[in-house]
Each structure stands twice: as C-alpha cells, then as structure tokens.
C-alpha cells in the first residue's frame, strides 16, 4: 500500500487485516502498539467504540474527550479520553482530518428509512453482536466515534453530515496508551444520504510503537493532556 511509509520495518507489524464493508471487528490493542485504520476506498465512515481491556467498565467518553480538549472534532495530536480521566488512544497521525463524535450509530430503523427494505447491516446491531462476544452488551454502548466522517454544526445547533470527505488511502493512527479493547462497525454513517447502501472495505494494521520521545506531540500538546497521561501512566507503575 502506498499509505505505508518507508520507515516501517515489516517486523513491526503485528496484525494486518482487511475488514469488509458491513462487518464488525474487535481486537485488544496493547499499550505500546498502534492501530492504523485505512479507509481503502474513501468510504462512508467507521463507527468505533473502545474500552480499557483490563476493566471494560472504563470506556471512551465522548463528552470528556470534547470538553477536556475544547473541541468536538478529533485530529492529529488529540486524545481519546476514558470516563476515568485517562487516555485510551493518542491520535499520532491523521490524513483525513474529519472524525465525528456527535452523531452516533445507525440503527435498523435508520438504515431501512435511508435505503429501503433490505438486510442492511447497521452499526447498533453490529455493536451488540460484537460486544456480546466480550460479555458486554446494551449498557456498554455510550455515544460512539465515527472515523472518516465530517459533521458540521451551525450556530443555531443544526447538525448535518458533509458527505464524501474521505479519500481512498486516508488513515488514522491510534497509539494505545493502555490495553484497549476496540469494537468497530464498518457500516455507513448514520446520516449517510444514501440512497444506495454501499459500505466499503477498510484495513486494520497493528504495529509496535516506538517509545514516545520527550517532545511527543500527543503527550505535550496541553496541560490537560499531561495530566491525562499522568493518570494513565499510574496504571502501569
């Protein structure tokens, strides 16, 4: 793949898998490794949840992630916070620039409304099946992330999707700062305008991460981030 940079030695790669459109996927991304999600064809978004793999009652918190960083749109340098004041993932690279933290998950009703009758895979049903395999369920679904998706918010609060913002090959790198259980659904964004149901494949690559340098962007980005890492590192002393 052209998206792979030349400084990536092959032996750094722990896992490499293509996830078909419509499917769900989960994997524990261990502290010190990085998950790269590649939008192979420039698709319609990837819905995403994550948990402390060692204690999944701690999970991604959209509200804390937004207010701690004073922004609801995520990109390079920013962090995914848990509801326990700790960092799940650092976004160490991002070639897309648009990731939605607000609009949530498609449902059986939303996909039937959008695409008409059919056996369309939806995010919520995918999440539930995937979570069940980890002994998690309905109570474990907080507001999710949607990678490779842009929503806009008007001053009066109106929210809408800006379609087709992601180009083929766009990727985001998520460096695990604790052992993180990832649960994702490769299904179109809940506000996808349709009318065709057309999820496309993504690729997931997990690599060993180099130890963060003293001037690591994500670790030094803000005083809040430094405190978030202090809380996180304390788990591993």
């Amino acid at each position: 793949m052209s998206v792979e940079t030349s400084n990536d030695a092959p032996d750094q790669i722990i896992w490499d898998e293509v996830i078909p459109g419509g499917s769900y996927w989960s994997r524990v991304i261990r502290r010190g490794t990085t998950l790269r999600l590649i939008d192979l064809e420039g698709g319609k978004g990837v819905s995403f949840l994550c948990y402390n793999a060692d204690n999944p009652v701690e999970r991604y918190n959209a509200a804390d992630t937004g207010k701690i960083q004073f922004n609801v749109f995520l990109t390079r340098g920013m962090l995914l916070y848990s509801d326990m004041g700790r960092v799940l993932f650092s976004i160490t690279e991002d070639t897309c620039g648009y990731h939605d933290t607000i609009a949530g998950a498609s449902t059986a009703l939303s996909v039937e409304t959008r695409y008409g009758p059919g056996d369309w895979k939806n995010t919520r049903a995918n999440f539930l099946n995937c979570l069940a395999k980890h002994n998690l369920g309905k109570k474990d679904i907080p507001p999710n992330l949607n990678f490779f998706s842009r929503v806009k918010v008007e001053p009066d609060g109106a929210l809408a999707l800006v379609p087709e913002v992601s180009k083929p090959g766009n990727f985001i790198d998520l460096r695990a700062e604790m052992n993180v259980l990832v649960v994702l659904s490769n299904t179109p964004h809940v506000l996808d305008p349709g009318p065709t149901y057309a999820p496309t494949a993504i690729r997931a690559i997990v690599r060993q991460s180099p130890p963060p340098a003293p001037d690591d962007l994500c670790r030094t980005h803000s005083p809040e981030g430094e405190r978030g890492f202090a809380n996180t590192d304390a788990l591993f002393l």
Partner: protein
Amino acid sequence: MVTISTTLDPERAIYNQVLPARKPWTYVVKAGQILRIVDLGGNQAVDFLVYNAHDPAERYSAADTITAQGNIFVTEGTRLISNDGHILMTVTRDTCGRHDTLGGACSCESNSVRFGLDKKWQHACVENFLAGLTQHGLGKRDLVSNINFFMNVPVSPDGTLEIVDGISDPGSIVELRAEIDVLVAISNCPQMNNPCNGYNPTPIQLLIWDAP
C-alpha cells in the same frame, strides 16, 4: 401541547420540593406526568439522565436525540429519544432557550485532568449520579452522555466547544412530559471551576403534575 403546561398551578402539583445546591435526586415520573425544573438562582447547570422505569437498559441517548431532530440543543419540542428509538420524554416548555447535550457530567477523574490533579477530591456530578442510581440497582454502566439543562455550550464551525457564561435567568423553567414511566436522575451540579454554575452552585425547584 405546549399551552397545557403554561397553565400548571403549583398548588396542584403532586410534588414540589427544592433540591439544595450540589445534591442528587431520582424519581419515577409516570407516563403523562409533567416534571418542571426551575433554575431558581439562574445559571445553574442541572445534569439530567432518564431511563425506562421498567427496563433501565433502555435509556436516553444523546446521539439518537440529536440525529432525530438534526440539532445538538435541547429546547421546547425536543423529544428525548432512547437507545431503542423510543420517546422517553418531550420538552413541553422552555423559557431558557437551549440546553446542552455534549458536555456530559463532571467527574472527580475528569476534574483532575481539566483543572488540576488535586481537584479530584472535589464533589462532582458523577458522584451524585452514582449515589442516586445505586438506590435503583443501577451503576456506572448506566452512565451515558447526559443533558445539561440551563448550561450554555456553543459549538463553533471549527468544532470548538466551550462551557461559557450561562444564558439562564433566575426563575428559568423547563418542563418535560413523560411519554412512558421513566426514572429521572438529576445532579444539581457542584462544579466550582468553570462558569457553568456562575461559580456559585444554587438550589433548584422540582415540581410534578399529574396528566392534565
């Protein structure tokens, strides 16, 4: 729909209590009943969660509520949608104008990140929610993104989100009609480190009327 609630008489309320500053509250509001929340002192954030009283795994979903109405703010006419796509409550009256769905609840842990590691000892909304919800057999897994009534959290086109000075005057009112039997959990927000409570948490008033 809206005109009904403007005529509600406090003398006829079946419940009428002042919730002191910083305190939690939970209550089962029956289908058809109307809950009024009064921001007595102004600019007091009221953190709010709501569940199907008979099956609390069904609960308010911020994302489903936002996408259903195409707007991030709760205001008069907003239907609070559950994670199963059902209407839990409808906002029948709102004299404030808009309410936050994105800021969530303060917690000891997030306070430590936002304001300083030594701030984790301060009281916080998650503590209130847990104190209230554990009385009903619920717990941490039942905490999801909540509504913050009377809290002003504008979002700029570039995504900038900030909790700023309030827009709620003393005596501001929001009223919600239960569409099914619901369990309501409130934290009268104790936050002291930003303007969400005007740096001075104050009491709120809670009233409930039977279906007209």
